[in-house]
């Protein structure tokens, strides 16, 4: 199993930032701002965020903002979407540069996407999903503007997506899925509504996600994948049930998914690495209190020191 190749992962992320002309980066073009959030948060957890020029990143992020609606696109000139807007706000917070943002303009955009039933659309085209409830609630809370939405209705909608197994789906009736569970539990945690979660029932379902190889899966009978080291583990942490899984076996599974030569983490052992899974692997290890990593906040998906700065001014 061996140790975390922290230095190699730093080099890998920095090289992805510089490598612009291959096929993968072309396909990533439209969600570049999400990729930047994953990469930069990973660097911060590895205590190496100073390796990037913050002014460059911040000015690029700001150029992704749609001046008319106030939301952010995935890249310069792209349409605004809640998911990209959350990533933009998170990146600015990593660098403590919220001063550059017209907070009311952004938060009006986010609040404007709430629907009558309390749910949120991702953009003006109206796709509804509990992922967007999370994006909106997390974003507004980070901006201290939760009062701009009807939080009670937002919570009611999320609760309407709860299933018989204690988990949550994307819409009412949708199958429980670890990614959606993170979104719903995260939004409930942020709004102080965790009493709606049946912690023991959900905790049991979540710990049943640990497979024989030590990794976690997203739904019953699916293969383990490093990304669930974040979605499942953060949810278990928020409901205080993380000790119900075998943490050593999970850490070993994540470490086994590293590319020890060139850095980066893959979805499962011996597959190709990407920034997305590198983030989820490192964030998962952070929740497991792996030595040397900054602790990460399970609800806001930002380093704890960043979250403390936002809410306690420390």
């Amino acid at each position, binding site marked *: 199993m061996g140790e975390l190749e922290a230095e190699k992962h730093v080099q890998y992320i920095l090289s992805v930032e510089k490598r612009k002309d291959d096929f993968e980066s072309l396909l990533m073009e439209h969600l570049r701002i999400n990729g930047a959030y994953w990469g930069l948060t990973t660097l911060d957890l590895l205590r190496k965020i100073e390796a990037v020029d913050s002014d460059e990143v911040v000015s690029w992020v700001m150029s992704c903002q749609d001046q008319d609606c106030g939301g952010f696109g995935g890249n310069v000139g792209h349409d605004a979407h809640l998911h990209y807007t959350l990533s933009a706000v998170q990146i600015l917070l990593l660098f403590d540069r919220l001063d550059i943002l017209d907070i009311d303009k952004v938060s009006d955009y986010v609040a404007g996407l709430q629907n009558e039933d309390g749910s949120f659309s991702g953009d003006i085209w109206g796709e509804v999903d509990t992922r967007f409830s999370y994006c909106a609630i997390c974003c507004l809370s980070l901006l201290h503007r939760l009062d701009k939405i009807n939080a009670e209705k937002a919570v009611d909608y999320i609760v309407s997506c709860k299933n018989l197994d204690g988990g949550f789906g994307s819409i009412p009736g949708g*199958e429980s899925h670890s990614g959606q569970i993170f979104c719903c539990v995260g939004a409930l945690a942020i709004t102080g509504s965790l009493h709606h979660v049946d912690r023991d029932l959900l905790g049991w379902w979540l710990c*049943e996600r640990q497979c024989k190889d030590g990794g976690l899966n997203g739904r019953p009978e*699916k293969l383990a994948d490093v990304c669930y080291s974040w979605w499942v583990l953060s949810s278990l942490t928020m409901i205080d049930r993380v000790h119900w899984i075998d943490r050593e076996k999970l850490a070993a599974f994540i470490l086994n998914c590293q590319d020890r030569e060139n850095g980066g983490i893959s979805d499962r052992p011996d597959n190709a690495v990407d920034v997305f899974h590198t983030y989820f692997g490192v964030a998962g290890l952070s929740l497991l209190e792996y030595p040397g990593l900054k602790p990460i906040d399970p609800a806001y998906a930002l380093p704890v020191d960043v979250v403390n700065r936002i809410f306690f001014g420390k």
Partner: protein
Amino acid sequence: MSSSSSSDDELGGARIPIGQRPEWSDVRPVPQDEGPRPVVAIAYSGEFRETMDYFRAVYLAGERSPRALDLTGEAIEMNPGNYTIWHFRRLVLEALNVDLLKEREFVDHTASHNSKNYQIWHHRRWLAEKLGPEAANREHEFTRSVLALDAKNYHAWSHRQWVLQALGGWENELDYCHQLLEDDIFNNSAWNQRYFVITKSPLLGGLQAMRDSEVDYTIEAILANPQNESPWRYLRGLYKGETNLLLNDNRLTDLCLKVLKTDCSRVLALSLLLDLLCNGLQPSEELKEVVESMRHDRSEPSNANLAAVICSILEAMDPMRLNYWAWRRSNLPSEIC
């Protein structure tokens, strides 16, 4: 709708660069704005860059034309995950009043090799909403074809549930669930859909009307594969909020007994039994004997209560979740200790 400028995989011929097509000679392509500093620039290459440069030109000009529609088709073919292209395509479709059945053919084609792409499914829903209830069966056929390749595709299931509720077509849904479970009894998505159907279908009378026959169906599935997590959870769901019914249904304790007497994985049977005991079930002598016979450590006093014994057995049987079972043992309701 497709002109000679369509992408090569449709026509089998070589793709003509857009810059060499006469119908585009009046348009100046617009390269990606790299932001104030070029350090984070993307060096686009080849066809992709050219297509996106022309796309930006028509997008910025707000051009709602047949050639713009064709161009979005090419751009989507190259990168179906880009929200902006889909968004613009819908604006063009609305402006040109295009035959939406033709648009559905386009989406069928695109979705067939991108079945996990959020944008395509959203576009499909937009389209079905415009086509109305007559489109229901065609949409069900479509999700059926996607689920035939990947029976757990989350997007397909979400779309199917939306179509059922918005446009109808419930008639054969329970049969369809049964068919999928015949193919793979471990398919949690099909179990979830089954619960959706019995609780929401306007044709079946709801959970109360369906409970009895569903319990029999589920027990049969469990006995065939006692290690299958999904039907055990489904069974609990059938008694949601009805603890008395749960405790008084002898079929459940019989099920636990039967499974405990086999050589199969017995974790899930013990777990249900534990929940029943915690809710006040009075165990039969036979049940007590079967559980006692499973104890690894016979040195503990045999007068320990049955729920605590079950927790100890589970701690040994399911070491990955040892802490969970230990927690259950230390949190047994005081009435049964």
